[in-house]
């Protein structure tokens, strides 16, 4: 059986891609990805139109997508995250059909159950053999885990692996096995290593970020969850990483042996594993070179699929076994609803990613955000878009105080007993507005440009076009 084809054009033709079909992409190559652009350009050249793009994330490197939308090569988008480059164009209404946002857990769930079927999955693979066994752990474009691509590989009607590092059969340490793969294409480069993973992710030096991080670590310490068997997830933002560092210090000082670290994994989580804070890392995505090195060499550092990570209907997901997660927010309202989809002017510049999933699954979901950014307060009466519902958010940590969701009376008492600066969210809002003033209410259009699909499969919120 010959799977290795001569060109991307041949793979597209053999896969039977035609007008109106759905193509899928993963985002492990992040802002260094060449594959989404490469495939859409080839499809456009072949005269294919009205494609539906199901990409786990859309980054700024994907701005050629805007041209494909205008030329009707692409007429539908489903994703979990959309950076500002394409997001601002979408917000201005260039796509007729609203974008569908899902979370990292609901996307593979809906692919698996057939709600969002994929005709052809194009899987960027940093290393692959001619039969399609592939991985992100090796090769010049190594990205570590391929967790977001696994559901695509398992459930798409046709699967095309695109690699720039073709190795001899069999690639032993594969992430996706050949039995899911139809065609393999070798290209010069699948991405720009500079945009794929950071050299190192750094903890913040910003004094405000450090204060928030210190508060965050103390909240975890006071929560009662920090004991042997503890599990933890945090983002790659500077303050979140600083919180992980402070948490590591507490765990080592108190000799606490945690169970697992989850999520997008950074070098800081690897440090915690190596220091004995965790017994394993469950990794759906690597953020930096240290994480890539670790997943390649340390058997305790496990690659997991997005289904295993966070799918709501899975028979078991790691997110549902998580103790504590630290997450960010562009806005949070007085009901603790969090927006990570739009900026304060209503433009799409993000998305839930795993935010919604781990908020729902964890025992303690902590949002860490400054009281204001660029003169705009973080706490509002109502967020522009509900990415994560307030019922799943337990506490907001800012430099000016810690607000506990009124649903969590016991947690609030624990934080008070620990002498932490607990306040209520309304007070925090008023305190911030004393500094920033009250911003003008956002005027939005009446045309839906995106729907945010909740974990229950229903529309959780709608993002409207921006009126200039």
């Amino acid at each position, binding site marked *: 059986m010959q799977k290795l084809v001569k060109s991307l054009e041949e793979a597209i033709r053999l896969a039977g891609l035609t007008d109106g079909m759905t193509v899928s992409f993963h985002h492990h190559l992040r802002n260094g990805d060449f594959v989404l652009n490469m495939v859409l350009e080839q499809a456009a050249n072949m005269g294919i139109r009205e494609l539906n793009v199901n990409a786990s994330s859309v980054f700024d490197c994907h701005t050629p997508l805007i041209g494909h939308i205008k030329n009707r090569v692409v007429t539908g988008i489903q994703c979990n995250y959309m950076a500002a480059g394409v997001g601002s164009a979408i917000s201005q209404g260039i796509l007729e059909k609203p974008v569908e946002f899902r979370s990292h857990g609901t996307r593979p769930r809906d692919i698996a159950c057939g709600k969002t079927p994929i005709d052809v999955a194009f899987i960027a693979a940093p290393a692959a053999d001619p039969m399609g066994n592939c991985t992100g752990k090796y090769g010049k474009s190594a990205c570590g885990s391929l967790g977001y691509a696994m559901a695509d590989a398992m459930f798409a009607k046709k699967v095309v692996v695109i690699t720039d590092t073709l190795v001899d059969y069999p690639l032993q340490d594969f992430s996706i096995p050949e039995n899911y793969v139809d065609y393999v294409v070798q290209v010069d480069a699948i991405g720009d290593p500079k945009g794929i993973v950071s050299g190192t992710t750094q903890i913040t030096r910003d*004094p*405000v970020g*450090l*204060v928030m991080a*210190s508060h965050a670590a103390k909240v975890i310490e006071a929560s009662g969850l920090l004991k042997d068997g503890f599990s933890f997830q945090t983002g790659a933002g500077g303050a979140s990483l600083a919180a992980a560092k402070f948490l590591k210090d507490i765990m080592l000082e108190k000799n606490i042996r945690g169970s697992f670290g989850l999520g997008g994994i950074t070098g800081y989580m690897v440090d915690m594993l190596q220091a004995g804070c965790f017994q394993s890392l469950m990794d759906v995505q690597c953020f930096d070179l240290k994480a890539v090195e670790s997943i390649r060499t340390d058997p305790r550092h496990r690659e997991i699929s997005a289904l295993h990570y966070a799918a709501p209907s899975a028979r078991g997901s790691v997110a549902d076994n998580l103790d504590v997660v630290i997450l960010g927010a562009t806005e949070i309202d007085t009901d603790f609803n969090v927006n990570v989809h739009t900026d304060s002017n209503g433009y799409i510049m993000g998305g839930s990613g795993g935010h919604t999933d781990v908020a729902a699954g964890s025992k303690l979901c902590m949002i860490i955000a400054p009281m204001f950014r660029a003169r705009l307060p973080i706490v509002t009466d109502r967020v522009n878009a509900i990415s994560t519902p307030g019922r799943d958010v337990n506490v907001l940590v800012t*430099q*000016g105080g810690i607000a506990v969701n009124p649903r969590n009376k016991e947690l609030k008492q624990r934080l008070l007993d620990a*002498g932490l600066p607990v306040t209520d969210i309304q007070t925090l809002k008023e*305190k911030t507005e*004393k*500094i920033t003033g009250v911003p003008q209410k956002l005027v939005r259009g009446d045309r839906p440009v995106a729907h945010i699909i909740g974990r229950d499969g229903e529309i959780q919120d709608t993002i409207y076009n921006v009126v200039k």
Partner: protein
Amino acid sequence: MRRSMLFLPGNNPNMLINGSCLGADAVIFDLEDAVAPDQKDAARLLVRNTMRYMDFGGVERIVRINSADTDYWQADLDEIVPQKPEMILLPKTNAAEDVLAVDAYMTALEEKLGFGQNTVGLMPLIETALGVENAYQIASVSQRVQAIFLGAEDLTADLQCKRTKGGAEIAYARSRMVMAARAAGVQVYDTPFTDVNDDEGIVVDTEYAKGLGFSGKAAISPRHVEVINRIFSPTEKEIDYAYEVLEAIELAKRQGKGAIALHGKMIDAPIVNRAKQTVAMARQLGLGREED
């Protein structure tokens, strides 16, 4: 309680508005070294407005004005004193006369504003060899002086020696400052530790200052505040012991005894005083006992 005093550049709005969130017991708005000559007036007004409009909660506000040998210090005081900072930090204080000159100007301002005398305190910053030698006179010349503060960077320049992390070159100055302050009955603050990346160095330096008898320590980086606060706070053991001392004294009083021993050691007046200070600080930190 003033364990930590954090310097905030007077021309940095982001630092100023977040000043009360950085964990320090006091912030020092700096109009002197952090501000270039062509920005002196802008910083002065920015600090004035920050103090006027921002609520710093329980965080003390101190302002470092420009030194008395510049053209700026009076204008600084004209704008700042009306905002009622807890203290003015007066740099390059060499002698008691420097204090008296500024004190007189502040008294006149307070009268004009209808404030009581010494509403705003004064903390001379001693950072020259002459200043160190005159430390007691500086600390005791006016009721307005609440504390003195050692500035080691300028001092070592004046001493014509290198500033080291070990601090042997300022050992005498540190001891002399503590002695002078305690003799004059005022507080005394240690120079900042300047390497913001040396997490162990700040601990060693702060423990050393605490051991010498300093009341607290200044910081130029918010990263140092937590360490300073921790080291200048009483430990759980110290708090427990302080309560034991006070209970023992209470018992002695009830029994009509003049002296009493605790763990085989006589409890005398200095030990009782220290125990009272420790309990008072524990209460401020929320670490006191319910019966308080």
